[in-house]
């Protein structure tokens, strides 16, 4: 049954949740300042509850089932995270309270910084960026500030980016005023060293590396690539979106990455919330640490009397690029990530081991069913081609058909270098039984592609809506509710 818009429930004069009457004398409102209409819905509380409950049932989350969306690390989000994040001692803190009144919150941030430093092998961490892409922007600004401080700011304007990189990498570089230079991948899915070498000159600001890369492969040329870029004076930005493969496996900071972002909403189990919030802390080595965006949390040496009872405070890195947002980052997300790390400790390594085990197991079982463009050991994810030779079936069809089998589809058409890419990231929280059920669905779809391709091409059949007309959406551009009787598709 289609669900009306909340506006369509509105009845003039209906009251929702009421507030108390003023307990102070009313002050006159300034004349000429006031609005007349306020076209918000007028609905009852029960309307609201039913509306959003029904909407939620039209959604699919990790809590509902397997969600192998590559590059997104859709692992299970522990419920204890939610409980602790809602403690009034966290949820009801104003960001401008005196540090002395929020020592618990600062301690949590401090330790989270320390944990991330240890995990990534960095000298310092700033928790400030709101998401991975803001972390990228901040990291690139740091690289630029570093070059500027060495008098090379105007010169080093080229950011080298492998062609398998996520779109945020070039977009962030451009926002920071850099020119993006694409570096192709070699036949094994690694950075093409020759191509890289050709671009390595004194105009290079840096190289952005995603490792494992978006093919799910650990770059076999990694150390050499880093070396090449460093040698020409460039710095290495690490896109840490794929850290779920590397916890306790290796530390990017030790391998030569100068700055890297973490996606707390991927690796560290904070929920995605239908598109955020995330958090994109960045770690930096000694060289770039002074440029981190602030504030950071540090131990206030002056006020600390006993070393085992440290007093925490906000500090600013010496040469900080500045603020990337007001206040001090996505604290609510930090609480969740902190809790997750505390529940794993050094055994985080087992998380990555299981993530990689699951991906390789799935790859091994799918290999015979679908073409695999780069067929070697993968890390936490891998890419197959969504084709069934001799049939018209495309990656998109397979994705849609998976919905009918009760699964969320993998990432489609990314990375761009693989035609009909289906990027599959099972994560470590999935059981063998779930993976086997997924393989079975993929097998059936391959079979259907041969015996009944129409069934696949017109999928999904069991979802609240069928395939939607995206071209029409872009053409007609209905981007908000309008009460006016415009010609609108009628709900049936």
């Amino acid at each position, binding site marked *: 049954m289609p669900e009306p818009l909340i506006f369509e429930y509105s009845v003039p004069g209906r009251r929702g*949740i009421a507030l108390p009457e003023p307990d102070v004398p009313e002050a006159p409102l300034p004349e000429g300042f*006031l609005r007349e209409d*306020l076209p918000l819905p007028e609905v009852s509380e029960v309307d609201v509850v039913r509306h959003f409950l029904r909407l939620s049932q039209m959604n699919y989350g990790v809590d509902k089932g397997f969600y192998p969306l590559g590059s997104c690390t859709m692992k299970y*989000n522990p419920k204890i995270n939610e409980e602790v994040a809602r403690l009034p001692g966290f949820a009801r803190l104003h960001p401008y309270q005196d540090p002395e009144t929020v020592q618990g919150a600062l301690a949590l941030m401090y330790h989270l910084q320390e944990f991330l430093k240890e995990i990534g092998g960095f000298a310092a961490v700033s928790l400030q960026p709101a998401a991975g892409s803001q972390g990228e922007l901040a990291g690139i600004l740091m690289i630029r500030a570093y070059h500027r401080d060495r008098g090379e700011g105007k010169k080093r304007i080229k950011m080298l980016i492998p062609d398998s990189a996520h779109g945020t990498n070039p977009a962030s570089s451009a926002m920071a005023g850099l020119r993006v230079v694409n570096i192709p991948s070699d036949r094994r899915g690694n950075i093409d060293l020759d191509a890289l070498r050709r671009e390595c000159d004194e105009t290079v600001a840096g190289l952005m590396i995603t490792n494992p890369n978006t093919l799910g492969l650990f770059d076999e040329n990694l150390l050499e690539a880093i070396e090449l870029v460093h040698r020409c004076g460039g710095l290495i930005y690490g896109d840490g979106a794929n850290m779920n493969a590397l916890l306790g496996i290796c530390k990017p900071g030790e391998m030569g990455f100068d700055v890297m972002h973490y996606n707390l909403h991927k690796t560290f189990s904070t929920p995605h919330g*239908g598109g955020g919030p995330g958090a994109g802390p960045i770690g930096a080595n000694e060289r770039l640490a002074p440029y981190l965006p602030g504030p950071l949390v540090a131990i206030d040496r002056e006020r600390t009397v006993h070393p085992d009872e440290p007093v925490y405070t906000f500090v600013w890195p010496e040469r900080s690029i500045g*603020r990337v947002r007001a206040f001090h980052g996505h604290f609510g997300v930090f609480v969740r990530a902190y809790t997750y790390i505390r529940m794993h400790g050094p055994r985080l390594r087992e998380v990555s081991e299981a993530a*990689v085990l699951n991906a*390789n197991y799935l790859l091994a079982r799918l290999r015979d069913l679908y073409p695999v463009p780069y067929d070697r050991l993968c890390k936490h994810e891998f890419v197959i081609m969504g084709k069934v030779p001799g049939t018209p079936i495309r990656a998109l069809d397979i994705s849609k058909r998976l919905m009918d089998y009760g699964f969320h589809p993998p990432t489609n058409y990314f990375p761009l270098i693989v035609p009909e890419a289906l990027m599959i990231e099972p994560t470590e929280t999935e059981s063998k039984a779930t993976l086997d059920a997924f393989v079975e669905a993929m097998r059936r779809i391959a079979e259907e592609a041969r015996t009944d391709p129409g069934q696949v091409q017109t999928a999904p059949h069991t979802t609240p809506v069928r395939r939607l007309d*995206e071209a029409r959406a872009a053409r007609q551009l209905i981007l908000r509710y309008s009460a006016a009787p415009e010609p609108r598709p009628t709900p*049936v």
Partner: protein
Amino acid sequence: MRFLPHTEAERQEMLRVIGVERIGDLFADVPEAYRFPPLNLPEPLTELEARWELEALAEANAHVGQYACFLGAGAYHHFIPAVVDELLRRGEFYTAYTPYQPEVSQGTLQAMFEFQSMVCALTGMEVANASHYDGSSALAEAVLMALRLTQGERPKVLLFPTLHPEYRAVVRTYVQHLDVRLEGDEPQPLERLRQPLALLEDLEGRLDAKTAALVVPYPDFLGRVLPPARLRETAERVHRAGAFLIAVINPIALALFEPPGAWGADIVVGEGQPLGIPLSFGGPYLGLMATRMAFVRQLPGRLVGETVDGEGRRGYVLTLSTREQHIRREKATSNITTNVGLMALAATIYLSALGRHGLRQVARLCYHKAHYLADRIAALPGHEVWREHPFFHEFVVRLPRPVPEVLRLLYEDYQIIGGYDLGRADPALEGHMLLCATEMNTREELDALVEALAEIGAAAL
């Protein structure tokens, strides 16, 4: 291990299928020198122990449920109806990714469409995106958008001096390596800061053919609301100069005051936290961003549009993706992908639950309480309240004693979290405090603050 479902037998079977012997073999491609470093982290906790530890950390903070709180300055203590979290935390919303697959994401998509609609309703604009990180980064993006809209040919952006200082800082961070000049927010003497209309005139005077945008706060950092009629003139001047008018709003204030869409703003941004989102020590919050349809192709962030499915049923999809990084890469309107969808959902539920009438009530309560408080404090000897300009729910007061001292005494002796020390933001404002009152402050709290200020102030007179 916690959250890992495999038994040893399953692990062995899986390794066999893969064709390796040990899990370690899966990491043969990691350079040996770096492989399996020690991870020096504290030992794992069970859920029960983690809860104990987190409870202890939370207990180590004083929160606004325990203390009367008069802090605002960009983050506001408001009432959040119980329905908001109850619906928000439903797993299907909470644990979904960005709705790339519309057939299994209609819940998120329709809610985002409603969110966009509500932001348009509040701001009086024609199109709103599906959220940005927070108010400050939304402003930075609005500035970049104005730069794009002027084809990069106008490097100057005028910032109102009493914009939130951290918002100005964020804009500076974003544009630091671009060919952009931020102007207008140079330090000002106290007397000028007290005259927002003079500040506005000043700023308008700097409009020229190199100006991409002029940014006005509504209300400003000091709580004051510029007259809509006057802002209409500003908009005309800005447009006459070929530039864009950006407004930074508080959404609760918009329940009362004429929306920027009505007085001519081109881009509206703001912090959506007051709309049902917990203070949570500063984040995650909700960046609001709206504009006119004419500029939609330069709008950063996700957009949800209405369409139909193969059977003619109404449905929602992400649209105009060609603006975005995953399609356009370095040519995208922004690098943003993960936004704050859940916070946008919270605001949508909040606005639905309160509705037209409830939101107005919230705004009026804020207004009346702040004015009651301002009037009472103004009557205290040694205190001077800035009341010559209309304000919403925040106002400036000059104290007879140093602000940090007053704040400490309020906290320690009166269980009150006082206002914001304006000296932190601007040396010209030393000795001044920014006080905020919302519907969460009962009259008893307001009176208690007044008493406390009177007592504390008396010592200085």
